[in-house]
């Protein structure tokens, strides 16, 4: 890595909570060469976005940059005065926000929002040149460049288009460095794939160094040249992408890789309990030690220094026990339920059509779920999968056709269903906040379905404790309130609440999409166990294709309100019959098999 | 509602307006003069006295130098340079968009100011409250009999439109007062109708009453008994219709805003100003502020609370005139314990009148002597002033067996002064060993069904001639018999009947003196004080004299003709 080719150098960067002085991130050191992409990976709260913003010399309210240097093309961003810093932003280093829906100004036209970057920084010789650059950059990010399009407002664009406008703003003034903060979160896979490709091409073509901040390993694997893994405010592993995925050295990285779902394998996802310590609560030693199987007194006493574990290149890791974690990839014990005969069907859908205010959004859907079977319902946002699952749960009433439970036809609205039926079909939502009463102890929330069914109080108490235990939360959690729990814990509570009434059918609607990968894995692990144990019929609604094989036996692919493909998970994902499914699979980022040397 | 009323109705205004719901502040005084049993009347009414047909030569009295000087009159001095002519006088008065302009009818004080500016009555009172003609249009009124009067008008007085004031105008003016369509003074119909008037010549009219009453004579001296030209009608948008004889004629009028009156060159008397603006104010504090900041020259009717701030300013001064409005504690002479005269007498001895003036009026008044009609020429000034005498009161109570009296004294919350009066009296009564509880009621309740029924209560009245006041409150036939006077066996009613038909002033005053004596010794009113009229003005405003008066600002400078600016 020669000095001439390095575009961005971060050295010993530290940011603190302004009021307390507790470190948010510390000892951040990395380089990115021109045209290269470095993936900065970590779970929420790890400090990756804080680092990303610091590259632009920006710290959010309450955060202070307290040490280190960030050098871009010879100038230290952190040492610039206000005016020079302002000049550097957008010109020297630019930023692509996480959610373009909120990061684009709703009151301004998109062309203008790109143009103002050029105007501010005096790009080009005159207005005509700047206008030409706007047109050009819109073409570069694969957006229409017609004047009429430039005059649109953000809300008139799709999510993918909005993100491309974000890219256009970032690339417009031809900066040396671009920080991308989870720019594809919330996009459907096809759009995400296109945006990622655009980023890759632009970075290469224009020799831009890109810092790509994300929690999504698959995206990093497909896009980045190098990967830095952050945990609790520190970079714990930094190496070429292939090395990180093929030979993860830090136990945390190894957990991450093991927890990442893979499209091509039905291996069991292995989660990890606990959570990373927040600023102010971090130990003196290795922050991961409390969750690490390998942790020794040494780990707890001292934070390991950076070691290079690749004699032939650069593979930095901060661990006394590098490579020491046992192999985490365990094949999954697949339940061999393949029957879809109506006799066995716990839940049967026949010609279900659902609509919103008269507009049909689900068309003529029929399928069954057998006892002990999990069917994954996959599709992009807007495909109708949520409407369908809500219709089954009786939460959406505007539907026709027949849905039957154990051969008994269900009323349209849950309110019209007998208590037994209501308890037999349970629902877990994406955001457990909405299903847990914020001012009620969780034990009360969990016991509520039983209370409604008129179960005796002491009995409820016992069942609740049992369920808490079952979802790996101790019974003492019962007195906690929802906001005292982490996202993963809340989702466990929601699952406990769903299962306490011993349902026959469990509907999980994007239950893991708000969770970090380790927690997601642990949640999936739990659901698989419970399903096997209780013989549940489960409908697992998700947009995350790689997750499917880790949990479901069969998969129903939904597009535009119709089921376009229905088959076993293995067949469908390895040998899709429909164009739509094929395209979805192609567009879904996946971690390549670095070990066997396949190209990304 | 109550608060708003307080804003509009200064304590000096008559009670009945409150009873009828903030309606009339007072129609022209003829109402009060003639029978006194309609009580939508009177901002201030007049006090009779004087000669039956006193004739004074028509003419003017120099401003600030009245022909006769009554006690309590403060002279304003005319500077060596003499009176200066010219200038515009800006007068502030509380008024509203409800203001009206009628030569013979008013509702609010602003209306009163405008009426007096534009029109003049048949006769007027002098400083001793005798009938005079120096500020009015008659040359002479002859009382031929108690039911026959002859009015002769001054010669050559011109209306604003150049027409000469004549007998037809006088007759029209009387007929307008009793016009049922207008409803100005419906009670006057008991004395006159359309056939009562005989035109003797161009300026002489004989009036034959339907029944004898000297009150009619005094009524003609009321400020509202004005002479309007034939076919005069109330203001309805056109200032040119408002024809009178006053020293200033109307130029413009916008209700709730202002009226502008310009000098009437052919005025029969003398005047000094070029223009008078009567400016409406939404409330009294804005009025006082405007005076303080120099936006107006005269502020009509200043609240006691703000009098001090005007007094303390070097550029402003107060014009404080003794007036006849009174507040009273009423005792029902027909009910226990007050059916025993000793108890009534004891109560009257309990009141510390000086303290009442200080506490209730902030000093802006004078002590009362349990008699009303103080601005009446017949008022017996020589009766000894009653003072507080607790020992005598105790003795009287003991005699009556009421030394441990416990009684409730009622007051309304909508009339400034009365709750304070009741409370102060209750405190003073403690010294005499009796327990008086002051109870303040909501105004609506107070003046409702139980009004005049309560044994021990409070009330207030504007000034009327003595006989008119008797008719309103102290006869069995009175409209508001608060004290239920006179007691059984009294010859009070016979005295009244004789007096009302007695055209000879001395003889009538003898009768009145006896009536007053009865009320002074045995009556049911505790009249502790009379209220003053207080106006503020810039020191350069000259010509207004502080003297006992019925109407604010020295009777509005008798229509501003006496006022001049020393600028």
């Amino acid at each position, binding site marked *: 890595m020669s000095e001439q080719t390095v575009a961005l150098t971060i050295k010993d960067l530290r940011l603190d909570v302004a009021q307390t002085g507790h470190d948010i991130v510390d000892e951040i050191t990395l380089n990115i060469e021109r045209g290269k992409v470095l993936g900065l990976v970590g779970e929420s709260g790890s400090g990756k976005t804080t680092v990303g913003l610091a590259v632009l010399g920006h710290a959010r309210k309450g955060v202070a940059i307290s040490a280190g240097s960030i050098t871009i093309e010879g100038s230290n961003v952190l040492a610039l005065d206000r005016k020079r810093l302002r000049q550097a932003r957008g010109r020297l280093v630019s930023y692509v926000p996480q959610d373009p829906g909120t990061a*684009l*100004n709703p009151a301004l036209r998109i062309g203008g929002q790109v143009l103002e970057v050029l105007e501010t920084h005096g790009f080009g010789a005159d207005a005509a040149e700047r206008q030409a650059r706007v047109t050009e950059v819109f073409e570069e990010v694969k957006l229409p460049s017609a004047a009429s399009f430039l005059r649109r407002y953000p809300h008139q664009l799709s999510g993918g288009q909005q993100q491309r406008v974000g890219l256009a703003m970032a690339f417009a003034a031809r900066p040396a460095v671009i920080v991308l903060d989870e720019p594809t979160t919330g996009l459907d896979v096809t759009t995400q794939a296109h945006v990622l490709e655009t980023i890759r091409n632009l970075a290469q073509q224009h020799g831009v160094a890109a810092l790509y901040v994300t929690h999504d390993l698959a995206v990093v694997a497909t896009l980045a040249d190098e990967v830095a893994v952050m945990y609790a405010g520190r970079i714990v592993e930094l190496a070429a992408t292939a090395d990180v995925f093929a030979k993860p050295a830090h136990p945390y990285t190894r957990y991450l890789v093991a927890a990442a779902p893979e499209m091509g394998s039905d291996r069991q996802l292995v989660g990890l309990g606990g959570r990373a310590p927040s600023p102010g609560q971090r130990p003196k030693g290795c922050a991961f030690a409390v969750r690490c199987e390998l942790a020794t007194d040494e780990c707890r006493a001292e934070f390991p220094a950076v070691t290079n574990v690749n004699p032939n290149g650069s593979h930095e890791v901060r661990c006394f026990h590098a490579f020491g974690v046992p192999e985490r990839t365990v094949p999954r014990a697949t339940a061999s339920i393949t029957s879809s005969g109506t006799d066995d069907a716990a839940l049967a859908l026949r010609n279900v059509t659902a609509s919103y205010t008269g507009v049909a959004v689900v068309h003529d859907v029929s399928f069954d779920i057998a006892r002990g079977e999990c069917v994954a319902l996959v599709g992009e946002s807007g495909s109708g999968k949520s409407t369908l699952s809500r219709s089954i749960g009786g939460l959406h009433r505007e539907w026709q056709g027949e849905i039957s439970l154990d051969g008994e036809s269900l009323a349209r609205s849950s309110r019209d269903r007998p208590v037994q039926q209501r308890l037999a079909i349970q629902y877990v939502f994406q955001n457990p906040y909405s299903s847990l009463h914020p001012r009620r102890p969780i034990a009360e929330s969990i016991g509520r379905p039983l209370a409604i069914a008129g179960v005796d109080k002491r009995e409820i108490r016992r069942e609740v404790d049992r369920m808490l235990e079952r979802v790996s939360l101790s019974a003492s959690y019962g007195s906690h309130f929802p906001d005292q729990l982490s996202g993963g814990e809340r989702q466990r509570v929601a699952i406990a609440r769903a299962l306490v009434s011993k349902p026959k059918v469990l509907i999980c609607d994007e239950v893991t999409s708000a969770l970090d990968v380790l927690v997601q894995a642990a949640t999936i692990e739990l659901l698989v166990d419970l399903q096997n144990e209780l013989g549940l019929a489960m409908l697992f609604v998700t947009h995350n294709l790689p997750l499917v094989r880790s949990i479901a036996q069969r998969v129903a692919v939904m597009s535009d309100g119709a089921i376009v493909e229905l088959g076993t998970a293995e067949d469908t994902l390895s040998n899709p019959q429909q164009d739509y499914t094929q395209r979805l699979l192609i567009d879904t980022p996946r971690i390549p098999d670095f070990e066997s040397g396949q190209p990304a | 509602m109550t608060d708003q009323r307080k804003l509009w109705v200064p304590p000096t205004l008559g009670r009945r307006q409150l009873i009828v719901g903030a309606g009339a502040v007072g129609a022209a005084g003829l109402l009060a003069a003639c029978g006194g049993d309609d009580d939508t009347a009177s901002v201030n009414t007049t006090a009779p006295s004087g000669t039956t047909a006193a004739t004074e030569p028509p003419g003017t009295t120099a401003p600030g130098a009245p022909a006769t000087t009554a006690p309590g009159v403060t002279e304003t001095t005319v500077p060596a340079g003499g009176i200066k002519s010219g200038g515009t006088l800006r007068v502030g008065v509380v008024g*509203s*968009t409800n203001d009206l302009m009628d030569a013979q009818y008013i509702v609010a004080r602003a209306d009163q100011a405008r009426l007096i500016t534009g029109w003049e009555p048949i006769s007027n009172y002098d400083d001793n409250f005798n009938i005079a003609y120096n500020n009015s249009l008659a040359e002479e009124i002859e009382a031929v009999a108690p039911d026959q009067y002859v009015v002769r008008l001054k010669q050559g007085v011109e209306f604003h439109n150049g027409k000469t004031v004549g007998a037809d105008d006088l007759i029209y003016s009387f007929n307008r007062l009793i016009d049922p369509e207008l409803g100005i003074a419906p009670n006057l119909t008991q004395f006159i109708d359309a056939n009562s008037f005989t035109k003797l010549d161009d300026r002489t009219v004989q009036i034959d009453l339907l029944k004898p009453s000297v009150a009619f004579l005094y009524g003609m001296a009321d400020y509202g008994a004005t002479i309007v030209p034939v076919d005069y009608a109330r203001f309805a948008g056109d200032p040119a219709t408002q024809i009178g004889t006053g020293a200033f004629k109307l130029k413009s009028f916008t*209700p709730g805003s202002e009226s502008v009156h310009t000098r009437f060159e052919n005025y029969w008397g003398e005047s000094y100003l070029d223009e008078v603006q009567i400016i409406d104010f939404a409330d009294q504090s804005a009025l006082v502020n405007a005076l303080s*900041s120099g*936006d107006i020259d005269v502020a009509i009717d200043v609240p006691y609370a703000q009098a001090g701030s005007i007094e303390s300013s070097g550029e402003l001064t107060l014009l404080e005139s003794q007036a006849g409005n009174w507040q009273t504690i009423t005792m029902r002479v027909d009910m226990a314990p007050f059916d025993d005269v000793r108890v009534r007498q004891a109560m009257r001895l309990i009141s510390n009148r000086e303290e009442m003036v200080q506490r209730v009026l902030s000093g802006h008044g004078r002590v009362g002597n349990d008699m009303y009609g103080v601005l009446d020429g017949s008022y017996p000034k020589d009766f000894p002033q009653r003072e507080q005498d607790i020992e005598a009161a105790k003795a009287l109570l003991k005699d009556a067996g009421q030394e441990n009296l416990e009684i409730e004294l009622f007051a309304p919350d909508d009339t400034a002064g009365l709750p304070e009066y009741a409370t102060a009296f209750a405190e003073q009564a403690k010294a005499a060993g009796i327990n008086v509880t002051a109870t303040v009621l909501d105004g609506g309740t107070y003046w409702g069904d139980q009004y005049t029924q309560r044994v021990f209560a409070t009330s207030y009245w504007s000034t009327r001639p003595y006989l008119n006041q008797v008719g309103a409150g102290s006869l069995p036939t009175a409209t508001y018999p608060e004290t239920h006077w006179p007691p059984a066996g009294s010859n009070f009613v016979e005295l009244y009947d004789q007096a009302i038909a007695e055209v000879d002033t001395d003889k009538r005053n003898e009768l009145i003196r006896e009536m007053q004596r009865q009320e002074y010794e045995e009556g049911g009113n505790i009249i502790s004080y009379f209220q003053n009229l207080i106006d503020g003005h810039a020191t350069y405003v000259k010509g207004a004299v502080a003297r006992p008066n019925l109407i604010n600002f020295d009777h509005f400078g008798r229509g501003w003709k006496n006022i001049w600016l020393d600028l």
Partner: protein
Amino acid sequence: MGIFKLIIRRLLLGVATLFVVSIAVFLLTNVLGDPVKRMLGRGALPDVVTARRAELNLDEPIVNRYFTWLKGLLTGEPGVSYTNGTPVWELLSDRVKNSLFLMALSSAISIPLSLFIGGYTALRRDGWADRVMSNQLLVLAAMPEFVVGAFLTVIFATNIWHIVPAVSRIRPGESPWSDLDGMILPVATLVLAVTPHVGRTMRAAMIEVLESDYVEMARLKGLPERSVLWRHAFPNALGPTLQVIALNIAYLAGGVVIVESLFNFRGLGIALRDAIPEANAPVVQFIAMFIATIYVISNLMADLFTIIVTPRLRTRLQ
């Protein structure tokens, strides 16, 4: 274009609103009391009362009277004041002008001022300037208008200095422009009364906007702070503030009785206050309808402005 259709639709809605209001106003003014009794007093003779009632058309059925009144209102003949026989329009035309002028002047000062203060304090959030100003705004918002007005009068007009007139003195028939001196205290009082409300709303809206992703983004694009504020933050904070401004404008047009009274300002508020106890229905009705109209118009304007500064709403129309 869609916006015109919207304006027409909203105008029609406004007219419908005013129609409903007119019915309510008419019915309510009819229960104020009997104006004839008030005019003539208790001693009035019955046939006089009857005659006067006929003269005022009070003997007609209420439905007929309503339509007669409505027709008069629409044809510019809103009737005659019961108390003094002056045509309502003659009585109130100056006051309409004055009130509108007071409203316009107070708005023209208080709206930019409160937007500025709100924006500035939001920008300097928790700084000393913000603390001082926010506290002041709170104190002012809590202070009754007559206290503020009386303070100003004492300080600037009567007791301490004589810099400005204590009372307004717009002559009948003259434009309020003729008495700008006299407008100073009433306008200042109203500005002090209205600014806290609008300012605090603006501050809250601005704080929300300043914390938005797009403002952070604007800064990360290297835009000068001026451009961040005026181009990116301000228009977005304006939307929520407009509704509050509209309410305040309607208030300024007719609800400022205390200020009018304090400064003897010849506005509609006082006229309404004076007319109600006298059951002076034509005056009450006219003023109530005027205030309702201002209310409808200012809300309409606020909605339109909101649409203009909110492209999401604007483009939906197209």
